[in-house]
């Protein structure tokens, strides 16, 4: 087995579990849920700290079967929007189908972003959101960058200058460019370790999680019903 793994397995309490791409996403949601006092979500993924991306979604979904009875809310899948959230939505739908095929499961297949697809007889409900989502492009870093920049606009200008000088502002991929911006941004706040990752910035309070930029996600999380066996909700976060 490669990568760091938990020596103690993670239990699932429910009623919701968040399936996300990487370590930073997990820390972000753990801290956001705590900061905004939102209860009822487990954030066990990813277990392997050196592996992320949507490629692990099928395994993550398959691994939950033993806990389906506790997931009376459902499974919330969070992916980066990248340059087009509709493409990501289609990609995540494929990952759910892969989990169903490989694991003999019957997860419902969502028909739209930001909407809960009701549970089937054999599997919990599923919702897919992207970050920043709701039409935005980029990734989790995009939201964090906006929140951080609004606190320190002078540094934001300097970071943009660096992006121009290095040519990184021409990369074209919004998520990657915002990752570069954010990493540059937070490096200056970590004297002891300028390589410090986003997850540490989230955990040590550098990212202002009460900022309005995160309100849309918070509203969506709060709107999710605790029981979805026979219910669906309409674009709760919109």
């Amino acid at each position, binding site marked *: 087995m490669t990568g760091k793994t938990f020596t103690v*397995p*993670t239990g699932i309490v429910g009623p919701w579990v968040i399936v996300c791409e990487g370590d930073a996403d997990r820390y972000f949601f753990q801290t956001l849920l705590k900061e905004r006092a939102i209860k009822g979500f487990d954030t*066990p993924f990813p277990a392997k700290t050196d592996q992320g991306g949507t490629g692990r979604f099928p*395994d*993550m979904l398959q*691994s939950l079967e*033993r*806990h389906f009875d506790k997931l009376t809310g459902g499974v919330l899948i969070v992916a980066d929007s990248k340059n087009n959230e509709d493409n990501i939505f289609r990609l995540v739908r494929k990952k759910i189908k892969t989990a169903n095929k490989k694991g*003999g499961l019957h997860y419902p297949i969502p028909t739209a972003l930001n909407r809960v697809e009701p549970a089937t007889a*054999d599997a919990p409900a599923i919702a897919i959101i992207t970050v920043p989502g709701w039409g935005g492009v980029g990734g989790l870093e995009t939201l964090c960058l906006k929140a951080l920049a609004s606190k320190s606009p002078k540094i934001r200008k300097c970071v943009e200058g660096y992006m121009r000088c290095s040519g990184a502002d021409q990369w074209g991929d919004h998520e990657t460019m915002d990752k570069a911006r954010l990493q540059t941004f937070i490096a200056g706040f970590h004297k002891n370790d300028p390589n410090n990752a986003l997850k540490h910035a989230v955990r040590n309070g550098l990212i202002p999680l009460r900022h309005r930029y995160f309100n849309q996600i918070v509203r969506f999380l709060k709107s999710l019903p605790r029981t979805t066996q026979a219910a669906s909700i309409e674009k709760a976060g919109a």
Partner: protein
Amino acid sequence: MMDRSLEGRGTPVGYRMIDRLKVQNFRCFEKIDVHPLSRVNVVVGDNASGKTAFLESIFLAAAGSPELTIRLRVWRGAEALQLTRERSSYEELWRELFYKLDDKRTISAESIGSMGNSRFIEVLYENGQVTLPLNGEQRSAADSPAIRLITFRGKDIAGHEFKTQPEITDKGFVLGMAGENVPGSFFPSTVRASGTETARRFSDVSKLNEQGPLIGALKKQFLFLENISVEVEGGQGLLFATVKGTVRKMRLGLASAGLERLVAILVAIQTNTKGFVLVDEVDSGIHYTKLESLWSVLRAFSELHQTQLFVSTHSWECLKALLPTIKKHESDFRLVHCTRTDKGCVPRLIAGPNMRAAIEEGIELR
């Protein structure tokens, strides 16, 4: 409970003596129907969730007899039998087999194999009982001189019907036969495997000169081990180990209790072809560094000898050690997760690929 979600998924491979298990009113199970089982079935769950009862129910379905149920009683820690010719004593003997200890119910257990072969057994007090008149002073209704005889009836794997009623006679306890059984062995967690039984089985293997893979697998795990042989001590055949650096052979259990248990399990797998082996707490006595190879050799032996395995564990370390093996052989495995509910214990099957994913993702399976 029949798990509909398992229908058609990651089809189990190879021959399975027991593909489906149906049980009613036995131990903590009111009614269960589980399938498809696989070559290696790992039973997990909280204390008192029915793990051991699940193993016992397989034994009952595939090889159940009056004699077996008495053995189960002893394995569950009951004291040696003090049978008297009293009705209460006789009924006490069987009562704990029944769901909620209610012996007005009928216990039924059926095992259906992947080739369609099946065995069925019922345990009940029939209406219009045969009674056994006994001498003695009647002290209460329960001590009535008329004993209700319990009935074991069903259909064996050859398709022959059987019926037997254990009796207490002047010559002792007559248990009776219950048709042709599926070959099987049970290793309870609290009872040491019989040394003479293991030696007898090993001898059978050795006579066919088929002990090589067994000893080879053990030597890889237990580096101090050079060889295993049957020797006579005190008039009994027992297994002895040749240990590196020691001239004299020593009893296997003296060398290592874990080794002794593992040999007993592997020899049972090898000699129960087209049958099953049940192991309660499979990692008991095995050092954590040996767990990966334990799983590997259990699966390989199970495939080689067409013997189905049902093993229980409480240990995450043990499940985690399964990862290298299950990654290569997902379809060979099933997780049987037992939970206790208001309606008794419920076993639920998790397919091998999802079991593997949970281990890999660090999600609780027990």
